[in-house]
């Protein structure tokens, strides 16, 4: 087993206020230390904003600009343009947003910033619900998951944000997981070197919202990757696909076990969910095959 290739320079401190066992704190530590000191973060209301701490304290070692729930990408664009005007083009502007602030209320601002190809790194901490407000559904909540606003399980599927962003011809979009720290570090490092819009989605098993035991976060994240529920992959310029965890080695049933939000699901429904995951996996395989296209003209 190899150890994660990142150095902890203290850009995420102890004393943060994440729930015990939350892997978002781990992901923040890895990402912020990988980015380093020449950066400014933009944070909308979300668990991330809570984890930052309360004035006058901050768990983050870089300047943070908190903003409104729907404004992350626009706020970050303003920071970046002001830095450009001040001759500081090399500073990384990094968004740290939840899935609700990304898939739902902030989607319009995000889509526009991606279309304008602003030079931003956007991290989405995808805990599949509005956890800050106590755990209601977002459009990232998966089929059948119970949340505060879907007491009988969500009746529609999770929005495929990665493909939506790929359809914007975004320079870089990727998924990663706190179970695969090396993958996370590699992707953040890669994104840091690319000019234009970069988007990385991190799956965050939510202890409170998914009904997990305190020590289950990383295990669940790994099962999500291994079952193909959360495939680790990346797409460059909207069409060059690469899968970073090449095989499915666990079942959906194994992933669902231990999550209170799926406790009501029948064996038949588990089968159906397995079929959905298999179908998505096959589609992804097809994209990998057709992805070696000649380079297209991209944004100027």
């Amino acid at each position, binding site marked *: 087993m190899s150890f994660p290739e990142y150095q902890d320079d203290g850009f995420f401190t102890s004393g943060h206020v994440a729930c015990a066992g939350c892997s978002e704190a781990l992901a923040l530590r890895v990402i912020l230390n990988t980015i380093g*000191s*020449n*950066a*400014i973060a*933009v*944070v909308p209301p979300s668990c991330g*904003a809570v984890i*930052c*701490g*309360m*004035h*006058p*304290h*901050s768990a*983050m*070692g*870089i*300047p*943070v*600009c*908190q*903003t*409104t729930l*729907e*404004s992350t*990408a*626009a*706020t*970050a*664009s*303003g*920071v970046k*343009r*002001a*830095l*450009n*005007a*001040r001759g*500081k083009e090399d*500073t990384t502007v990094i968004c740290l947003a939840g899935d609700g602030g990304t898939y739902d209320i902030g989607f*319009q*601002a995000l*889509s*526009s*910033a991606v*279309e*304008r190809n602003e030079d931003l790194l956007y991290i989405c901490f995808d805990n599949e619900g509005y956890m800050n407000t106590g755990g209601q559904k977002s459009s990232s909540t998966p089929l059948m998951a119970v949340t505060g606003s879907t007491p009988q399980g969500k009746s529609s599927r999770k929005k495929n944000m990665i493909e939506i962003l790929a359809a914007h011809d975004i320079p870089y979009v990727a998924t990663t997981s706190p179970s695969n720290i090396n993958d996370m570090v590699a992707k953040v490092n890669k994104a840091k070197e690319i000019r234009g819009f970069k988007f990385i989605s991190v799956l965050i098993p939510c202890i409170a919202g998914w009904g997990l035991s305190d020590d289950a976060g990383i295990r669940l994240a790994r099962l999500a990757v291994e079952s193909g529920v959360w495939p680790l992959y990346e797409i460059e310029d909207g069409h060059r696909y690469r899968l970073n965890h090449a095989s499915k080695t666990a079942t959906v049933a194994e992933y669902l076990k231990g999550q209170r939000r799926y406790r009501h699901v029948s064996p038949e429904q588990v089968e159906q969910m397995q079929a959905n995951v298999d179908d998505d996996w096959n589609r992804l395989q097809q994209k990998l095959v057709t992805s070696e296209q000649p380079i297209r003209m991209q944004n100027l």
Partner: protein
Amino acid sequence: MTQPSNRMLLSGNHAVAWGARLARPDVIPVYPITPQTPILEKITDFQASGELDAELLTPESEHSAMSACISASLTGARVFTATSSQGLLLMHELLHWAAGASTPIVMFNVNRTVASPWGFWPDQTDSLAQRDTGWIQLYCESPQESIDTTILAYRIAESVSLPTMVNHEAFYVSHAMEPIEVPSQEAVDSFLPPYNPKHLLDPGKVESFGYVLDQNTHYQSRRNMDDAMQQVYAITEQANKEWKELTGRDYGIIEGYRMDDTKVVIVTMGSMCGTVKVAIDEMRDQGVSVGLLKVRLFRPFPYQQIRDALEDIPCIISMDRNFSPGLGGVLHQELKAALFGMQNTPKLHGLLTGVSGLNVTPEKIKEWVAAYSNAEPVVQSVWTE
């Protein structure tokens, strides 16, 4: 000695674009809406031709435009934007945010009716509905006033770290052409030093913005906003004075017109002031003495200045080109508050005039003066046509 300027034939909106250009903004996030669009297009022309060196950001909505204004300002940039009506309403959450963030953004708003139903007519309800957001508000009567006030607004905003909204009305001012004295760049540079904030988002400084505050600290932030607002009167007077020395053009927080020897004063804002002046001149020729008090600064509201100006005036007629349902005219309400408790409280008639862009002529104004000068006022605003 006044500085040289260029005389150009410009619409109100192009005058605003010139004012913005001369203020040298670093970042301009902006979204189009009738009748603001000529401001946006002129600015993008200036930027494309290299005459204006600014980062131009054209996002998908006014909401994102204002979000970017705030964060760019927090990152140390001088910022300009412009909007109107629905665009301003869409920004509402961010208007509060901008003021709370002490960002000295200058925004030009072209006053237009608010929907529904749709309309594109001069009406100040859009900006007056934002009066509790913590923005300084100024109202202009003419294109010349709009270019000058855009530049003045930066001086005021940056002196007190509050965002400032300058307004003129749709079409009557926004599209009216007028010969404009455009100040030289040197003159504006001497009036407006580069923006250099004490606090800003910078990787070298590690200062952050927007964290949750406890009750005491949040309360203190409101007290700080109030302190900043209270400074606006003196700072605006000082800016007006220096502007007069530089250009010869003399603006006030409030401005009296033919206030000598009169028992009746009309109080209003924006383009109706010009029409009122014409009516007053004609009435004076016919031996009727009437004066005008024009309110240029609406937030912070110049309570004391208005009390001083209206002392010993027995009859006041306010004219509101806006409508707050359930209340009436917003200026009428503010005047009631301003005059309350005066020794000889004047009689105050609140007229709703020109709401939804209805034309207000000098003849109408003369009729209203005749009808209301000797009447007993009612407490509510009165509809007029």
